[in-house]
Structures are given as structure tokens and as C-alpha cells.
């Protein structure tokens, strides 16, 4: 490994002519050159598309094509329909319930990993065990709930065998329950990782100090650990809330197309080629998400937390 270092890095062996004075570019220029590819990608594939959506949201559409125009009819239609409000309400409901569940589970798991496991190897192995599903397909993970929750699925069979119910429960699959279950299944990880990350940086002596001063386990948790873990909780919250609010596929698949959220409103319009109407809904969704994040960001400085 290290021999590569010696062959080229020692320039102009000592004794020969001093190296030509190089003109050093300023940090500003070099910085921008290095950041240029990232900037270009984000401009072309993030900023421009958002601008395009905002523009198209004022256009009008026929059954076959979209026509440039400047009309508010998409927004008027959107805000004039009671469906919109119901769907936004449902979206917030999914986000809130999923947030509460992922926070409770994620915090407990992170706490266990950070404070109860003493061997670092075991800790890393367990942490990886929690993160690996993140690198596998979300759609497959949704599909895999079907044999579990279906009418004749494992859950119903078990409950019947135990004598707890006489008839299979109908609300296990294709319901709000299955939608939220899938969200929790998919996104708890986004809580575990940032919370674990902040917990690992808590100075253990603070916790010992709390115990030494006679604090109980619960008191230490509430007055020491939770306040110090807040930044991780906020980052996890931002992830979970935005993922759930922007989702359309989980709701469609896990509810068997019986439930709706804003993302599905957009994707339905898209499948009907009603792009301007989809764009208008998308703009409202984006503003909603940004407002929520804006509020959450008041509680945490992300850049400091990495």
C-alpha cells in the first residue's frame, strides 16, 4: 500500500532546481470546480424539473396533449374540490401515525444498540442487521406482507388457531392498517440510524454523573438522553415525514387502490395524462412538505450534526 506513496510523491528530489512556483488557484475557484458536477446535476434534474412543474401547473390540457397557457383553473379545481382536503388530511394522518410508530420503535432500538451492547463488534453487526433491508427493494418488501396479512394469511390463521377470532379479520390487508404497517416496516430505519448516530456521541460520563447524583433510569432517560438525542430525532423525523408525505406507491399497493393520499392524486392524474392538474397538485404538495420541514428545521442544525 505505502510503496505507491514513495514513487511519485517526492517531486524534484532535494538538491536539484527548486520546483517552479505554481500559481495556486484560489479556494473559491477550486471549490466551485469540484462542486460543479453536483451543481449541474441538481440544476438539471432537480431545480429545472421543479420550475417546469410550476410552469406546467398553469397550463391546460386536452385528452391527448398539454397546451401552454396561463390559467389558474388547475388550482381552482384543486382547491374547489372536497376530495383534495380529504386526501391531504389522510396524508397528514399517515405521516403522523407512521412518525409516532417509527419514533417509538426507532428510539428503543437505537437506545438498545447504543447503551446496552458493550462489544463493538456485536454492536456493528446488529446495526448492519438493521440497515441491510434498506438496501433491498421496497416493492418486494411490500409484496412480502401479502402471505402474512391476506384473508387466509398467517396472521388470520394463527389468530383462528388460537381461538381468538372465529372469522378472518378483513381489515388486515388493503386497509389503513396495512398501509401504515408497511410504512413503519420500510421507514423505521430512517429513525434508527440518525438517533443511533447522535446517541453514540453522547459522553457516557454524563450518564454516569446522572446516576451518581441519584437519578433513576427513567429520569436519566428523560432529562439527559432524550434532550441530547433531539438532533437525531429531528433528522429522522424529517426523513420519515417527507418520505410518507411524498409516497404514492405504498398507499396504492398496500390499500389495494382503496385509499388515497396526495401522491396517488398526482399519479392518477399522470396516468390520465392530465399533467397540468398533476403539476398543480405537486406544487401544493411541495409547498406543504417545505413548510413542514421549515418548521422542523427550527429545532436542529443539520450541518452541525454530521
Amino acid at each position: 500500500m505505502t510503496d505507491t506513496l514513495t514513487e511519485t510523491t517526492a517531486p524534484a528530489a532535494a538538491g536539484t532546481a527548486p520546483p517552479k512556483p505554481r500559481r495556486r488557484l484560489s479556494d473559491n475557484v477550486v471549490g466551485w470546480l469540484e462542486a460543479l458536477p453536483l451543481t449541474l446535476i441538481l440544476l438539471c434534474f432537480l431545480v429545472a424539473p421543479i420550475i417546469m412543474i410550476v410552469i406546467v401547473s398553469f397550463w391546460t390540457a386536452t385528452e391527448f396533449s398539454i397546451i401552454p397557457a396561463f390559467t389558474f383553473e388547475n388550482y381552482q379545481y384543486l382547491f374547489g374540490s372536497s376530495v383534495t382536503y380529504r386526501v391531504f388530511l389522510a396524508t397528514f394522518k399517515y405521516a403522523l401515525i407512521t412518525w409516532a410508530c417509527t419514533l417509538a420503535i426507532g428510539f428503543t432500538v437505537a437506545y438498545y444498540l447504543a447503551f446496552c451492547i458493550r462489544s463493538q463488534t456485536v454492536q456493528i453487526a446488529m446495526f448492519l442487521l438493521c440497515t441491510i433491508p434498506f438496501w433491498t427493494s421496497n416493492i418486494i418488501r411490500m409484496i412480502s406482507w401479502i402471505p402474512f396479512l391476506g384473508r387466509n394469511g398467517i396472521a388470520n390463521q394463527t389468530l383462528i388457531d388460537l381461538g381468538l377470532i372465529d372469522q378472518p379479520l378483513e381489515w388486515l390487508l388493503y386497509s389503513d392498517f396495512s398501509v401504515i404497517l408497511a410504512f413503519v416496516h420500510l421507514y423505521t430505519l430512517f429513525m434508527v440510524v440518525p438517533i443511533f448516530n447522535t446517541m453514540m456521541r453522547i459522553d457516557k460520563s454524563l450518564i454516569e454523573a446522572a446516576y451518581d447524583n441519584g437519578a433513576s433510569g427513567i429520569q436519566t432517560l428523560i432529562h439527559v438522553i432524550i434532550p441530547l438525542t433531539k438532533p437525531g430525532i429531528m433528522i429522522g423525523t424529517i426523513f420519515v415525514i417527507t418520505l410518507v408525505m411524498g409516497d404514492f406507491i405504498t398507499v396504492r399497493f398496500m390499500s389495494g387502490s382503496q385509499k388515497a393520499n396526495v401522491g396517488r392524486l398526482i399519479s392518477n392524474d399522470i396516468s390520465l395524462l392530465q399533467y397540468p392538474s398533476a403539476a398543480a397538485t405537486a406544487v401544493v404538495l411541495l409547498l406543504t412538505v417545505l413548510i413542514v420541514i421549515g418548521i422542523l428545521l427550527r429545532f436542529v442544525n443539520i450541518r452541525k450534526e454530521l
Partner: protein
Amino acid sequence: MDKRPRGFYALTVFFALFVLFLYGPTITIGILSFQGPGGGLTFPMRGVSLHWFHDLFEQQAVGDIWGAFRRSFALGLMVMVATVVISVMAGLAFRKRFRGSGFLFYLSIASLVIPSILVSLGVGLIFTQLGLKIHWATSGLGAQLTWTLPFGLLIMFAVFNRFDKSFEEAARDQGATSWQTIRHVVLPIIAPSLLGVALFGFTLSYDEFARTLLTAGSYNTLPLEIFGMTTNVTTPVIYALGTLTTAFSFLIIGVFLFTVWFTAKRRARHGSDAGKGV
């Protein structure tokens, strides 16, 4: 040290249940994909067979899943390389105070939190309005990068925040140019983290659905193909496909983790050469 904190065993049970919750469903479809030819989408197993795996290789039964797999694999590699290169460059940039760095940082975070369907819709609209051909390797690649790059960048931030600058200063004191310092000092030190970035780049692309939906054009990637199957396939063949792709993901993750572990070990062995002279 002293005794386990109270509640340790309760928490252990909780953690075990959480892991079961994470992996249980996947294991279930893994078992069910070996369903006999007469079997359905749920238990009981009607015999054990490779019938449904065999079905995957019959073109007419499931559509073009092998073509979709090839495209997803190629796209995953493209996204992986682009993510590693661009994230490292941007990571280096953010160590300097350049004007507008705050703005670029928040733009990257925005890329992470803006709903995927907006990116998909917007990129699709731009390409159609400009008369460009929507194709997984152009519009699809760009749309996926808006998801993988922020992750890459966050990892680079974490890496450089813990980076010991004295190594670079030492190199510079010895007369290394900036490029030489990066090539021979910085990159070798951060190499294991780059594997992490590569893993994120590949797997996130390989499984990406929402951002590819309207940007893949006429040829589907694997997740799109699988999603298409969920609406019209009602046999365990979909479990067989799910089992295979998940096994493939595990294989990729395994290879990456092994490489990281191996490099770390090798490093520990070759460790420091201080005092050995040049």
C-alpha cells in the same frame, strides 16, 4: 463492568422482535417461492418445487424480466460510478469555504426530501417538451442521481469531519502538489468510505422505483417490471422473482461488506510503517 442495566432483557426481546419484523416477511416469501405447481399465494405449501423459478425463464409467462434485470444492473453501475466520483469531488469542495456552499448544501438536502414523484414528473415533462428521448440511461440516470448523490454527500461529510488534516499538511510540507496530496494521501485514507458510497449508489439505483417511473422510457427497469407484475400476476412466480432479486441484493451487500472488512484487516496488518525509513 457491573451488572446489565435493568430492562436489558426486555429490550433484547424487543430488538429480536424488531429484527423478526424486518426480515420475517422476506423469509416468508422466500419459503413460499418454493411452492409446488398447484400452490397459491399463501400457506399451506402444496408440495415443494422449483416450478416458479423455472417459470421465470419462460419469456411469455412473465415478460422481459431478464432484459429489465440487465438494464437495472447497467444503470446501477452507472449511478454507482457517477455517485462516487461526484460525491468525492463535492466532498472536497465543501472542505473549502467557497461562496455559495451553504446554498449548494441546502439544495442537496432538498434533493433528499423533495417527493420522488415530483422529480419523476418534472424530468419527464422537460424531456418531452424539449423533444428529447426519455431513456433509462439519460433521464433515468439523472433522476436517480438526485436521490443517490445527497446520500453520497452526507457520507463524505461524515468522513471529512473526522479526517485528520495533519496527513495532508505533512504531504504538502514534503512538496506534494494538491493533486498529489489528494491522489496519494486523501483518497487511500478515505477508500473504505468510498465503498460505502458505492454500495449506496448501486443498491439505491437498483431498487429505485418512483424516480424512474416517468423517466425510464419504453424499456422498464427491474423494479418497474416487478411493479407491473403485481397488478396482473397472481401466482407465486412473483415471490420467486422477489426471492431472486433479494438474494442478488444480499449478494451485492455481502461483497461490499466483505471488501470493507478485508481492506480494514489488511490495513491493520500493514498498518504503520513509522520508523522503518523509506
